[in-house]
């Protein structure tokens, strides 16, 4: 199986083949001798690679995860070939406008725009409060507010859709 793995913004292509219970792994075309053992089924992994030992911690799902090695955090996105094609199509479609999502879980304390409003890049769309910190969510580009997905006082989770913008052409 071929996977496209983005580690902190840098893409790698990884081939994983299982044959007779043995994994063969190649990163960017280079075969690596790897022994991967889950230590506790909670995300701690004991990994040996080419004689080096890595006490790794992994958490996340099949598509996004974070890995920690010796205190450093690596944000990882994983796509197989089918997912990669689907994501590319999605991105092409959304070009221009798009959905502004909550960068953190919180409460919408104030809406500053309504549907139909024209907004400029960096204009505040709403104020989101989390742990008593208020943050303005701003427009990523010039556009028109197509839909407001939230109401004032509403609690939203991280990644929730807040406002959909259409690009001004």
């Amino acid at each position, binding site marked *: *199986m071929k*996977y496209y*793995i983005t*580690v*902190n*913004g*840098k893409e*790698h292509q*990884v081939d*994983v083949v*299982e044959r007779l219970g043995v*994994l063969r*792994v190649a*990163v*960017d075309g280079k075969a*690596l001798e*790897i022994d*991967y053992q889950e230590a*506790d089924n*909670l*995300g*701690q*992994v004991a*990994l040996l*690679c080419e004689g080096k030992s*890595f006490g*790794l*911690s*992994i*958490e996340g*799902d*099949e598509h996004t*995860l*974070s890995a*920690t*090695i*010796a*205190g*450093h*955090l*690596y944000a*990882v996105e*994983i796509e*197989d070939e089918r997912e990669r094609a689907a994501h590319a199509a999605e991105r092409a479609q959304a070009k221009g406008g798009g959905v502004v999502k909550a*960068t*953190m*879980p*919180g409460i919408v*304390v*104030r809406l500053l725009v309504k549907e139909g409003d024209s907004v400029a890049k960096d204009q*505040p769309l709403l104020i989101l*409060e*989390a*742990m*008593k*910190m*208020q*943050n*303005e969510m701003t427009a990523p580009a010039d556009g028109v507010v197509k839909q407001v997905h939230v109401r004032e006082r509403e609690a939203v989770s*991280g990644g929730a859709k807040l406002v959909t913008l259409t690009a001004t052409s």
Partner: protein
Amino acid sequence: MFRRILIANRGEIALRVIRTCREMGIESVAVFSDVDRKALHTRMAHSAVALGGALPRESYLDMDKVLAAAQSSGAEAIHPGYGFLSENAEFAERVTNAGLVWIGPPPAAIRGMGDKITSRRNMKRANVPVVPGLTDPVADVDAALAAAETIGYPIMLKAAAGGGGKGMRIVRSKADMASAFRTAAGEALASFRDGSLYMERYLDEPRHIEIQLMFDRHGNGVHFGERECSIQRRHQKLIEEAPSVVVTPELRAKMGAIAIAAGKAVGYENAGTVEFLYSKGEVFFLEMNTRLQVEHPVTEMVYGVDLVREQLRVAAGEKLGYEQKDIQPRGWSIEVRINAEDPFNNFVPSIGTIRNLRAPGGPWVRLDAALYRGMEVSLNYDPMLAKLIVWAPDRAGAIARMRRALQELNVGGVRTSAPAALRVLEDERFQQGNFDTHFLATIDLSKPLEGEDVIVAAAAAIHRHFSSQRKALGTDASSRRAWATRSRGRQSSYPPHRPFADAAAADATTEVRP
């Protein structure tokens, strides 16, 4: 000395106080909200009283409930920790009026320092140097714009009743004033029920340096040197150290004397901290925190003192029993705050359940935490999960030890600030002591780290390989749900099978299950 005290707090600081109580043979009474029933402070105290509620104002901020808990449990004194009611003069007064001992400064001292505007006035009167700015709050955006012309940009907007970075904004130019004023006032109102803001000049290359004080009730006061807390983001501290690379013994003596004078000006008792801004050799009074600070452990490490023990001693009426000349620093200590926040995403709060936990160990490593596996990290409380503290004979040794300890630490289930701290400690400028309060903003954490990304890519692919395999073979609920999710997109284009999707039918199925 007290026989039993109540700790009006939660998390690591409640545990910190409980630990000293145990060592002194004093019984500790914990209070807990509904969500903290299983929290470590609830479990480790001698006794625990339920406050109910989840939000702070329904639990740890509810003065009636906390006082009732103290009285029903037979506590003689209340330790407020930091945050919550710790700097609330009204609460301190009510504690005293109820015949209990308040382990902290007298209410008048809290009032004299608690409001930043009042404290600036008091300090100006006592000839303590303060940052150029207004001693009165500004009414609105227009007034702020007018005042800014005389003070000069950049300007700092601060909540009059504030703390912890809430209700604070830097305004670099006229154009930014309206938006900054609006969000700062909104935050101040939400956090402190007081939206008033004051303004002051924002200093260049500022370093945050603070002096730890301890006063008894008999007019004796000493300082335990300085802590430097310049590594901050959004005005919240991330790394603290003692001593500071820029503080000479002469400057320490000078700042100590100013701090003691500041404390005496308001009739201070118990532990307190005077915060200074250091800019190019000059120091300015910022504010006094009338409580124990989060970062007090670095002082404890360098001075070999248990500050909570001293707090309890002086609150019980004992004399300090030592003088300034008896207090000498030894070696270097660093603290890193482990917050539940995502350093890759502008430090926004991260919530979840603590999955796995690997605590660092080894020589001169201290972990002050109330973490346990299975703990829910929610938005109800402060995002600080733990404090990691190390000591070494010198600063280079302390940095090396902290890097080693951070490499050992692993908190799974939420993102934490630990990787950001590690990046700071690895930075040459930090190692050379060449930094100010803007330092953290200069580190681009999203920049790909040259490191083990090949190993991570391989591990991630194997992780995906195994989890896909498990899902394909597995019969547990999660795998079924995953399959359903995957096919949902396709199903929506067909007419739904209503009879089988009926809720009553689903219930019937549940009932016949064992």
